[in-house]
């Protein structure tokens, strides 16, 4: 067992991060957090989390960016909204989890070949390209990016699905794909204009 310095210096805090979290959508009331742990208690995934949602709330508002963005917990969130409906201070915890994921992806805060961010990225690309998701291809691409072995592990499942005619490899897409591109484009420019 190796000894590790656990003391935190003020220099370890990132005030920008603290500011960001309390000004991002859903974080308006994060400073009200009682640290009561209702969110953790209600969370079906908290049993596996390195930092419980409650701790993430506190760490974020205090600006401990490293700890938060590199934590496993944000990727465990399945967005079931249990925390949000329970929160006694009406903090939109689920949405903050999205925000944290988004930021972690933007700032590359995740282990290599870690499937969840990969899935998000692949999903996004497919959506932007064709306007719809073809699950079969999505799954395929994700596993290609993570580990081929896994894919073989899953092949049994694939066969099962094929047999049940549920996996179809015909690419789904919408008619006016250009609209999707336009949408994304206009959001991008608007974001720059609003400096979001």
């Amino acid at each position, binding site marked *: 067992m190796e000894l590790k310095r656990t003391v935190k210096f003020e220099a370890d805090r990132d005030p920008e991060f603290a500011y960001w979290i309390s000004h991002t959508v859903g974080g308006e009331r994060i400073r009200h957090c*009682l640290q*009561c*742990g*209702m969110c*953790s*208690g209600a969370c079906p995934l*908290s049993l596996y989390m390195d930092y*419980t949602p409650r701790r993430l709330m506190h760490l974020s508002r205090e600006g401990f960016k490293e700890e938060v963005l590199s934590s496993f917990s944000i990727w465990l969130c399945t967005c079931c909204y249990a925390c949000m409906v*329970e929160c*006694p201070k009406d903090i939109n915890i689920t949405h903050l989890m999205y925000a944290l994921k988004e930021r972690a992806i933007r700032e590359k805060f995740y282990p290599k070949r870690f499937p969840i961010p990969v899935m998000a990225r692949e999903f996004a690309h497919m959506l932007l390209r064709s306007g719809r998701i073809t699950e079969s291809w999505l799954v395929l691409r994700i596993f290609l990016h993570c580990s081929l072995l896994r894919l073989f592990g899953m092949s049994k499942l694939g066969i099962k699905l094929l047999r049940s005619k549920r996996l179809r490899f015909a690419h789904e897409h919408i008619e006016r794909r250009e609209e999707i591109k336009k949408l994304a484009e206009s959001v991008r420019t608007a974001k720059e204009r609003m400096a979001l």
Partner: protein
Amino acid sequence: MPEQVTTSENSVRDPARIGVYVCHCGNNIAATIAVDEVAQYAAGLNKVVVSREYKYMCSEPGQAMIEQDIRDHGLNRIVVASCSPLLHERTFREVLSRSNLNSFYFQMVNIREHASWIHDNRAAATEKAKDLVRAAVRRVALHRPLEPRRVPIDPAVLIVGGGIAGIHAALTIANAGKQVYLVEREPTIGGHMAKFDKTFPTLDCAACILTPKMTSVGAHPNIKLWTYSEVMKVDGYVGNYKVTIRRNPRYIIEDLCIGCQECITACVYKAGKVDDEFNLGLSKRKPIYLAFPQAVPQKVVIDPENCIEFKSHRCKKTCVEACAERGAIDLNQKEEIKEITVGTVILSTGFKTFDPRRRPNYGYGRFQNVYTSLEVERLINASGPTGGDVILRDGTRPQSIGIIHCVGSRDHNTNRWCSKVCCMYSLKLAHLLKEHTGAEIYNFYIDMRTPGKNYEDFYDRMLDEGVHFVRGRVAEVSDWAAHPSEKGKLIIRAEDTLAAFVRRIPVDMVVLSVGMEPKEDAHDVRRMFNVSCSSDGWLTERHPKLAPVNTLTDGIFICGACQGPKDIPETVAQAGAAAAEALSLISAGCIDLEPYTAKVMEEVCCGCKTCIPMCPYDAISVDEAKQKACVNEVLCKGCGTCAAACPSGSIEQNFFEDEEIFEEIAGVLTHA
């Protein structure tokens, strides 16, 4: 501009010599308003003789400064620009009367609450202050001398609500030799406290300290106790409130009933059949019953909903037989309306406990072994449904008990406030339950709040007794076993925030420490007595620090939990305070009311009667002989609605005359 209203001769105005005083209020005003600038500006205004600024106008020297100026400069009008008139108008009016000036030659300007505290732009705030001062100067020049209306105080006091607050206030006033009417909705007085087993932190038994007080209320010659009764209507004003009270029929002639309870034994129902309100449905009572053994008054009640006689008229009426020779039972009793006159009123209408069904994830109502704290009080009480033996609804004795704090408190989904007493009573229950059952006790709390004399010691004592404390709000109580050890138990799921992981704790019994809420009819009470309520529904005091039991309506006082969550010591202290306030009015014998009444300028009045329906108090009538309206000063409460309605402008409201208000309007708007 509108035409000058002719004024009644009795009050001619002498040429105004105005003094203006601008207050710094330490830094409260000076921080955002250039006080000196305002004062200088005022000095230049028409008719202003002196204009000064000072750190604290309300202070001794501040007041002295005004008096000095009145003497030296022969001032006859005073304007003070400081805080809200609701705070210090009286203070400064007294300054004037001390200097033999009519106290209504004064106008107050609110540049703190209405300016310095709500603006940060110094320039703009200063401009605004100038405008307001200018308006006051122009207005005060027109003020007329007025005499406050002096009304006598009827020494009788009405107390609404017979919980510990009402009981204590009643005894205090009655012992001072004054008449008290104590009105209680339930068949007995005692309120919530009567249901408690022990009281924190001293653990003395609630009944032992309460029942003696209850008995003396029942026996006191100066207290008229009306239980099972409700206030229906309140008229009049301070010193002279006319109150209408409905006495619901209890179908027992109180003067004849001696509380022997023969009738109850005789009832055709051999056992109880209706949920017993006093034991919160944990036991049954008969349709004819005494709320609880020490009930005051010791008079039984019949509840018509469940009495066979009332439902079918086919009862043997064994109760009536049993009471044959006293004949105290009167099944034809009708409700009775009482009209009384009192000088002051004390509201002690109390609170209600939070209904945990509004927090479904705690399973109250779904799992039989989930109890509210109040139910547990009865469960451990020697005179309770189980005689103090803690046996669960399923007949077992709990080996492990979870006490969940903050149920319906500090929660945006239900009540946002902290109910203040739950931490302490949860500790108390932890102790009592341990004592009664020897079970493992877990307290789930967010923050442990034990502010109060000897409260922290009590907390330490619980720690010594080995009660578990888990810092975390419980997310759910379920009967879903995820582990063999959880089979057949209620599982409490919460994050142990100090350990920083989620725990599942199986228990046999769950106690929900429910918070305090305003009574559902708090708003009706508020309307009836003309007092105000916070948005949460708690009755609001005139000033949170300096007038904690007064309301904005003179002669109406509040005490106890109707004003906000509080424990017994605090409640009793407040009740004492309310009683003292009432007594001080009574012994003063009279009170001065604002003379803001309406008056008719007969020479202008055309007798059109437009004003008559305007007045909610029927204070205006028509002098048939003269065909002119005339105002009954005693009935007039000075709202001014008639003045606004009069087409010929012949009704004026004292201190709010059209002219005065027009000057004020022009003043605030016209930049000089």
